[in-house]
Each structure stands twice: as C-alpha cells, then as structure tokens.
C-alpha cells in the first residue's frame, strides 16, 4: 500500500516559492488500478516523480507498505518494487533495446522473452532488439519501449506517466488491451496518469489533480461519467468538481 501524507513540493520563482504540489494526501491500496487525471500543469507528473523519488518533497511523507520512503533514493525505491515509466524517456547512444529490457528484468533475457515484451506494445520485435535507444527511434517507439521496459521490470507498484502521449491510434488500442490485462492482475498495483477516456474507463479509482491539489476522487465508475460531462457543455448533470 502506498500512502501519501500532506505532501508539498514548491520551487522558487525568483524570491517567491511557487507551490506545485500543495498538501496532497492519497492512499493507494494494493492490487488497484488507479488513474490520475486533471488539467496540464496541475501537478500530476510532479506527484508521480515524487513517488518514484525523482523529486524530493518540501514537506510531507510517503509510505510504502508501512515503510517511510520519503528520504530514500530512486534506486532504493526501485528495489522495494516501485517502477516508473517516463513521460519523455531519455535516449542512450549505444544502449540496445535488448540490453535495457535485460537490465529492467534483472537478468539476461532470451530473444524470445525480450520479443514477448515488445510484442505487447505493438513493436515487431526481432528487428528492434539490436536497435539503439538513440535518435534513430521515433518518439512513439521510445514510449512503447519505455512501457515494455516497465513490464519487464514487473514492479509491485507501476507508475505510468501519460503512456498514451505520442502513440498512434493503432498502437494505442493494443496498449489499452495490455493495460486491461494489468488491471486484472491482483498482485500488481498500477498508477497511470492519463487523459484518455479508454484508459480512464479501466480505473478502479480515479483522482483528479488540479492546481497542485486533489480536486476530487472516487470510483472509476462514478467519476468517469461526471468527468466526461465536464468536457461536454450540453450535459445537464451538475459538475462534481470545485
């Protein structure tokens, strides 16, 4: 279980501190499929980065399975079973797709095993294994490899930061199927930052983050129609947000 308690993160803009995350408290139970959504610039990605340890909070606590991980390094959190797929994965000259999948898995993967992960994100596998993670790959290919990497890692808690960004429609359908399978796995907790209705429709729980705060949260079943309504001006239902 992941517990986020009164988490704050501020950056300095000149002399004045600017709140990016402002007193956020969330509990993510084991085995759930959680979707975090909300307007751009609202703090979703920062929250995900704080959970993985890529940013350090100004105040507040993060507990994972009862252990305070607030001051732990990224490596320590990874070893505890937290995984993270970057919104914009970095490129590496010389590092091959097969190598990064093996690093993620913590063992040398066979060609067949590596291919299986790539197939799940719609990449025709064998030809990709020797490719380097450099600028010869498109943004969409990098994103799909990033998702495959997190699958090979098999973390207890997987965090995906906008996995759909930069992915074409055909591959997106395949991705939704992959996430559907993940949603069924009770042993795995998944937190996805997304704006996509088809991903949101898989959510056990949804959290809306805006202006650095939790604006609303609830079950996916209840929240999704309300959110869709917000985006559709002709809808007569009263808006739940604000």
């Amino acid at each position: 279980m992941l517990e986020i308690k009164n988490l704050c993160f501020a950056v300095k803009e000149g002399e004045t501190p600017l709140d990016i995350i402002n007193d956020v408290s969330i509990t993510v139970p084991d085995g759930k499929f959680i979707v975090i959504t909300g307007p751009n610039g609202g703090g979703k990605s920062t929250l995900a980065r704080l959970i993985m340890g890529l940013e350090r909070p100004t105040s507040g606590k993060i507990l994972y399975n009862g252990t305070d991980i607030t001051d732990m390094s990224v490596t320590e959190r990874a070893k505890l079973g937290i995984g993270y797929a970057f919104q914009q994965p970095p490129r590496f000259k010389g590092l091959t797709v097969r190598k990064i999948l093996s690093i993620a898995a913590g063992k040398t993967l066979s060609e067949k095993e590596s291919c299986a992960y790539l197939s799940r994100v719609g990449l025709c596998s064998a030809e990709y294994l020797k490719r380097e993670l450099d600028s010869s790959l498109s943004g969409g290919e990098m994103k799909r490899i990033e998702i495959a990497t997190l699958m090979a890692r098999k973390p207890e808690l997987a965090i995906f930061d906008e996995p759909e960004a930069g992915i074409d429609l055909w591959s997106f359908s395949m991705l939704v199927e992959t996430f559907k399978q993940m949603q069924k796995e009770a042993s795995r907790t998944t937190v996805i930052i997304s704006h996509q209705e088809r991903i949101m429709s898989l959510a056990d729980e949804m959290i809306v983050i805006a202006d650095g705060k939790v604006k609303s949260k609830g079950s996916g079943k209840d929240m999704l129609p309300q959110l869709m309504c917000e985006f559709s001006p002709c809808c007569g239902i009263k808006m739940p947000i604000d």
Partner: protein
Amino acid sequence: MEKIDKELLQQVAGLHEIPVGAYNIRKNGKSEGRKSTENIEITSKEEGGLEIRIKPGTKNESVHIPVIITETGVQEMVYNDFYVGENSDVLIVAGCGIHNSGDKTSKHDGLHRFFIGKNAHLRYVEKHYGEGEGTGERIMNPSTEVTIEENAVCEMEMVQIKGVNSSKRKTEARLGKNAKLTVTERLMTHGKQFVQSDMDIYLDGEGSSAQIISRSVGKDDSKQVFNPVAIGNNACRAHIQCDSIIMDNANIRSIPEIAANHRDAQIVHEAAIGRINGDQILKLQTLGLTPEKAEKVIIDGFLR
C-alpha cells in the same frame, strides 16, 4: 605462456590460446611465435617489422599480430606492411598490451601500412591496453596508412579503453574508385592521460565513400584532441561523426574538418561533447541500478 602474457593477449586480441590461422606474437621486442599459412605469408623485413602477404582470393581467413610488452623500459618502433590480395576477404587483428611494473617508460610506436587490392574486403581490429602497478609510463603512438583500390572495402575498428598514458594516433587513407572505408574509433582516458587522434581521409576515386565514427569518454584530468579530416577529390560521399562524453575535469577538443575539391563531393560532419544526462542516470536508477552502476552501463554502451 605466463599469466601476464595471457591476460594482455586476451585484452588486445581476444585470444585465450594460440590463434587459428596466421599469426605473429611479439613480446618485448622479439618474435615469440609465428605461423604462416598456405594463403597468408608472414616474413621479417630486413629493416625491421613484418611483411604480411595475403594471396588474391583468400576468403574467411585471419591474421593475428599482437604485441605485448612486459618489461619496464622497453621502447620500440615497428613497421608492418600488409598486402591484401585482390578479391580476398580477411580479418586482421593487431593490438598492443603493455604491463609496466617498473619505473621506466615503456613505449610502442608503430607504422602499419595497408595495400588493399581490388574487390578485397578487410576487417581490421586494433586494440591498445596498458596496465601495471609501476610508475613508468605506458606510451603508444600508432600510425596507420591505408590504400584502398577499386571496389575494395576496409572496415577499421580502433580501440583504446584503458591504461595508456599518452597516445598520438595518426591515420591516413586513400580511396580509389568505388572504394569504401569505415573507421570506428573508441577511446577512454582517465587520470592524467593524453590522446590525440588525427585522421586524413582522401576520397580520390569516383563513387568512393567513407564513414568515420569517433566515440570517446574523458575522465579525471585527461585530455583528448580529435582532428578527423575528409577531403573529397571526386564524386564521393563522406560522413564524420565525433561524439564525446566529458566527465570530472577532463578537456576535450573535437575539430572535424571537411574539404571538397569536386562539385559532386558530398561531405558531412557533426561533433558533440557533453556530460552524461542526469535523466539517463535516473532512468537506470528506476530499474534498480545504483548511480555508479548506471554510469558504467551508459559508458559501456556508448563505447560498445
């Protein structure tokens, strides 16, 4: 063979035992063993050094000519000539390993000249490596001259990863009609090491092409200077790419140069120097690696 000899041979030539095919092993300035084959003849030149003649049409054979220096204070200069016959397809593995446990400078300078006949294909691998607990310097200054005739292909891989205090590398290549050259250079320097690599590539023949890829990592207080030059004297294509990772207090200069003396010459260069991106380290940390291990994986991949 002694343990140190075996280790050096493993580092510079990937050899675990006496190689298959033609070979000459040179240790501390003397030949330790030599074998010619039906198609590949190795002889000593009167003025010193070796002459290696590969018969036309020789396919899938290899020549290993490693040099190892295990005594402190050995200084040598060798001149080796390679004649690669027409229509042949061979691998030549050279390289020098110095183990210096004393306080005197050990130095290996060499001039390798290659004459690659029409339609031949040569793959040349040269690795330089130094080790030893002594204070004596380990110096290597390799010069390479390549003449590539019509339709011949030459692939060169030159590697210096560890332990060489000072190195001045000079490579000169001349390409005939439709000849093709690829050079991949991989260098890593640390401590107070210095390396300079100059390359002059003359694309003389119509339809000739060259690709020069130089990747380097500079650590600690080391210094590196790269000056690859491609000169297009005919309708030709060339691409020079210099890429360096800079760390600590290292100093790297990269000066790719291109020149065209023919209106159908197409020559491109690109050069980049930068430190390891913080996001790359973080990405690998999210996969459970420590920052130190992540750095190693990034460098190993880059110099692969």
